[in-house]
């Protein structure tokens, strides 16, 4: 709507013409002149306001496009002249002789033009602000500043477009700039010094300028980066090729890391930050991924050597360059795992074939060698095995913490390898239990508290690695029982701590029985204390300590025995012998007999519904024995006590003449001790270190006709002597014992498998054989690894007992029968 008012004297006056109506072109000339002055840094002479007003007037008088295009032309001309005047000859010099200095001079001149241009544009933009606010918006053109940037890009850098509309004769320096930059970088890589600040300026320029075709991307990204990456790739490719032939693994890794650091530093100093990731990728590809397996097996100093000599720093560097890349990391993991397998295998081989240097040993040979060793020696080797494995684990644990930066994948690699190694030795559960047993009995007092804790933790860790945890439970119970009953455990705290750690691992189901055993001991101790306070006790005349055991908790320790044991301490010498014991074993001594009865009576007062069955196999006794004038205190097993008491004066006069000489057969007849334990007891009394009895003949073997007599000549430097019996110590099992254990464990497993199958089928109703087997294995995996044959057998049994049936449609599928 026209605002001009044609009537004179009206209220609105036309806009005042404060300057004469000058030709727009002339007005523009003023601005063009100003722009040139700005580029010459003659700013102080100018009147900002005047030029602002000029632009304002031009826009108002609808000469916006004249102004805009005119400005552009002025800028283009200026750029072109500057290049020809100050840059072109330097570009040519750098082309002809690409020394660092020439490149630098050329790049410096480009950068200088750029920064001058930026400074000038800021001022020009301000002067022409009215144009930006009003004209540019409606004409949908780039702002003055953006236009200035595009002019620079198109006039100075880019090669002339094929269909040139504006700017013919533009200089196309971009290719030369790129080349110069790359040459500088290459020079720096070779150790020359270059001017980083110039390079940074150039990079900033290229980053700020937008690409003409795709304005979301910077010119840097489009013309410099790709070439930079490809040149770097070639450079590092060749470098790696050389290095892999001449360097050892630690050195190679160190150099690679140094290169990565140097390039990262370079990017930070004078390249675009977006390049970092890409350039790093190139180095990783060429230096690491391409040669990942090869580096590890460099002869004379590869991965295995580094592991063997525990070169923690070198392993650390190696890990750092491998870890970010998934494929090399996988290769590293495999390498480490293989080495663990190798070393673990050597340790296990040493167990089976002592004295061999870990090479291949035939199983048959090894078995016969080993069986010729005594059980004690075997036990020592077994303990050594556990110790060596744990020591090896400590080594790798150190690697994990110090070299592998506690990376989760290395943790799992190490653990998996150890699981393999440990379970490759099928006696591992037994050996681990023996190890713990040994330490709990006598290892701990030498160690500090943290060591103890560390040891227990490591033991539990190895337990976690075991596949057949149920076997371990079996052995542990046996060993624990012996420890508790012979009061051999050194530290109750350690025992409890260990059990609670196992509980954390496996749940309370597992440790239920173990805890029951402890409870029994505790209750028995309490009862003994109470008993001691009573008057009946005083009448007994001997100090009786009875441990009452609940059958379900305790393993069967000796054949055909009910699990009640008696430990009795007798400080009386030579009491009466009494025949007629109602149990299988004859308790000869009158006082002993009475004590046992008294205890039973006392106990049954509190627990009337229970039945006590005495077990003499596990007890021990302290006897004061008089050997022809010298008195010694002997600690012997209950059986030994019973045997020895046979040799005391008896009431029956008829036996008196024979009292001191008895045959093995007679001893057996009188005591009813079964043959096998009897031989062992006799051996320990007559053939061992302490000859309490004389044996004729003097051989080790005990035959029924051998005779025994009391050794009045017995001497010993100590007053108190313990006569050891083989069965009291926890040892590596003999073949026979092992077979027995396996049978027990196997039996339990069958029950568990059957129960699991039934439970699975009950919920699923129908399942294919494969699926059933897999599900069973999964469910039982926390206790043991069942063989699929065993599962098949159990399925067969369940089919027989009609818990399951074969599906009529498909014989591989089973149905649950309710």
């Amino acid at each position: 709507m026209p605002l001009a008012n044609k009537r004179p004297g009206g209220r609105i006056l036309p806009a005042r013409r404060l300057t004469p109506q000058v030709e727009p072109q002339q007005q523009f000339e003023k601005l063009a002149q100003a722009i040139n002055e700005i580029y010459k840094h003659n700013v102080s002479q100018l009147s900002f306001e005047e030029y602002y007003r000029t632009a304002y007037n031009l826009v108002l008088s609808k000469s916006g496009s004249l102004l805009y295009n005119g400005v552009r032309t002025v800028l283009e001309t200026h750029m072109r002249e500057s290049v020809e005047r100050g840059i072109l000859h330097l570009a040519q010099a750098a082309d002809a002789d690409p020394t660092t200095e020439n490149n630098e001079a050329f790049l410096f001149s480009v950068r200088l033009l750029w920064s001058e241009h930026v400074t000038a544009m800021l001022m020009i933009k301000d002067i022409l602000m009215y144009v930006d606010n009003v004209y540019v918006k409606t004409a949908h053109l780039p702002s003055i500043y953006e236009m200035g940037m595009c002019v620079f890009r198109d006039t100075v850098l880019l090669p002339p477009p094929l269909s040139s509309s504006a700017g013919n004769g533009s200089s196309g320096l971009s290719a030369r700039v790129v080349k110069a930059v790359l040459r500088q970088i290459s020079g720096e890589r070779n150790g020359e010094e270059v001017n980083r600040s110039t390079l940074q300026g150039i990079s900033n320029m290229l980053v700020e300028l937008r690409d003409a075709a795709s304005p979301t991307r910077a010119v840097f990204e489009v013309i410099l980066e790709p070439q930079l990456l490809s040149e770097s790739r070639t450079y590092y490719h060749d470098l790696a090729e050389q290095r892999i032939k001449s360097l050892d693994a630690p050195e190679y890794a160190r150099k690679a890391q140094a290169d990565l650091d140097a390039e990262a530093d370079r990017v930070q100093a004078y390249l675009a930050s977006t390049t970092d990731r890409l350039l790093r990728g190139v180095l990783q590809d060429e230096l690491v991924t391409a040669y990942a397996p090869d580096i590890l097996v460099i002869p004379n100093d590869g991965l295995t050597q580094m592991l063997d000599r525990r070169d923690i720093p070198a392993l650390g560097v190696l890990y750092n360059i491998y870890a970010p890349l998934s494929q090399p990391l996988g290769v590293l993991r495999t390498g480490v795992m293989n080495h663990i397998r190798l070393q673990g295998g050597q340790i296990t081989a040493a167990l089976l074939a002592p004295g061999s240097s870990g090479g291949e040993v035939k199983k048959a040979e090894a078995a016969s060698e080993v069986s010729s060793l005594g059980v004690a020696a075997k036990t020592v080797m077994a303990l050594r095995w556990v110790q060596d494995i744990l020591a090896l684990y400590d080594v790798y644990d150190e690697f994990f913490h110090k070299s592998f930066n506690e990376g989760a994948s290395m943790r799992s690699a190490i653990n998996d390898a150890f699981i393999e190694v440990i379970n490759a030795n099928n006696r591992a559960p037994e050996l681990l239990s023996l190890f713990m047993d040994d330490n709990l009995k006598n290892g701990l007092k030498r160690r500090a508290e943290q060591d103890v804790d560390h040891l227990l933790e490591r033991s539990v860790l190895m337990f976690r690695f075991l596949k057949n945890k149920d076997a371990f439970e079996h052995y542990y119970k046996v060993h624990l029982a012996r420890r508790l009953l012979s009061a051999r455990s050194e530290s109750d705290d350690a025992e409890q701590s260990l059990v609670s750690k196992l509980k954390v691992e496996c749940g309370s189901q597992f440790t239920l029985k173990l805890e029951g055993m402890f409870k029994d001991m505790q209750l028995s101790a309490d009862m003994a204390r109470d008993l001691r306070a009573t008057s009946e006790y005083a009448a007994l005349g001997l100090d009786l300590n009875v441990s009452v055991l609940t059958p379900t908790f305790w393993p069967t320790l000796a054949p055909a025995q009910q699990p009640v044991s008696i430990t009795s301490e007798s400080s009386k010498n030579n009491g009466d012998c009494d025949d007629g014991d109602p149990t299988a074993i004859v308790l000869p001594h009158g006082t002993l007999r009475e004590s046992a009865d008294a205890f039973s009576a006392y106990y049954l007062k509190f627990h009337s519904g229970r039945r006590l069955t005495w077990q003499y196999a596990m007890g021990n006794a302290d006897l004061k024995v008089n050997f022809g004038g010298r008195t010694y205190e002997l600690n012997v097993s209950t059986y030994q006590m019973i045997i020895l008491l046979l040799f005391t004066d008896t009431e029956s006069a008829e036996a008196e003449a024979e009292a001191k000489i008895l045959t093995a057969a007679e001893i057996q007849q009188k005591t009813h001790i079964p043959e096998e334990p009897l031989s062992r007891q006799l051996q320990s009394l007559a053939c061992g270190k302490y000859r309490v009895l004389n044996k004729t003949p003097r051989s080790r073997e005990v035959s029924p006709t051998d005779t025994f007599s009391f050794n009045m000549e017995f001497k010993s430097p100590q007053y108190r002597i313990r006569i050891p019996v083989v069965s009291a110590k926890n040892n590596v099992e003999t073949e026979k014992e092992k077979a027995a254990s396996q049978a027990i464990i196997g039996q339990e497993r069958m029950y568990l498998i059957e129960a699991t199958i039934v439970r699975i089928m009950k919920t699923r109703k129908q399942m294919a054989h494969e699926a059933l087997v897999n599900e069973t294995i999964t469910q039982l995996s926390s206790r043991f690894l069942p063989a699929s044959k065993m599962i098949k057998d159990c399925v067969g049994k369940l089919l027989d007992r009609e818990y399951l049936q074969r599906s009529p449609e498909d014989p591989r599928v089973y149905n649950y029968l309710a």
Partner: protein
Amino acid sequence: MVVLQSSDGKAFTVERGVAIQSVLIKNLLEDIGESDEPIPLPNVTAKVLEKVIEYCEYHVDDPAPIQDDLDEIPKRSDDIEPRDENFMKVDQELLFEILLAANYMDIKPLLELGCKTVANMIRNKTAQEIRTMFNIVDDFSPEEREQIKKENEWAEDH
């Protein structure tokens, strides 16, 4: 302190914070640098410049306007502060001169205020009333008038 000089030679001394509400003056000071020289404003008379300075002094502590909502949010014209409203109670000639000065000196809040004021003057008036108010000659030809009517039929109140 900054010295502004109107077209008729009058000098006004104002605090820097007041002056730089005009983006023109702000850029000028940044690019050229501070000096004691007065800044000439040949486009603005003393009468108008005085009013503009008055506005700027009142609003010197206002927070900087947010650039974003320039085009997005539709503008209201009923949210003029009372003081500003009084400020704008001047004769039409001066009102339009203030608008032009605000435009020239690039003082967006003042420009906006001016436009709102004019908008309120126009609102709910017929075309003829507006012509009378602003003393505008109706110089459309009949054909033109017909054309315009057709184009704006949708906005007609029937």
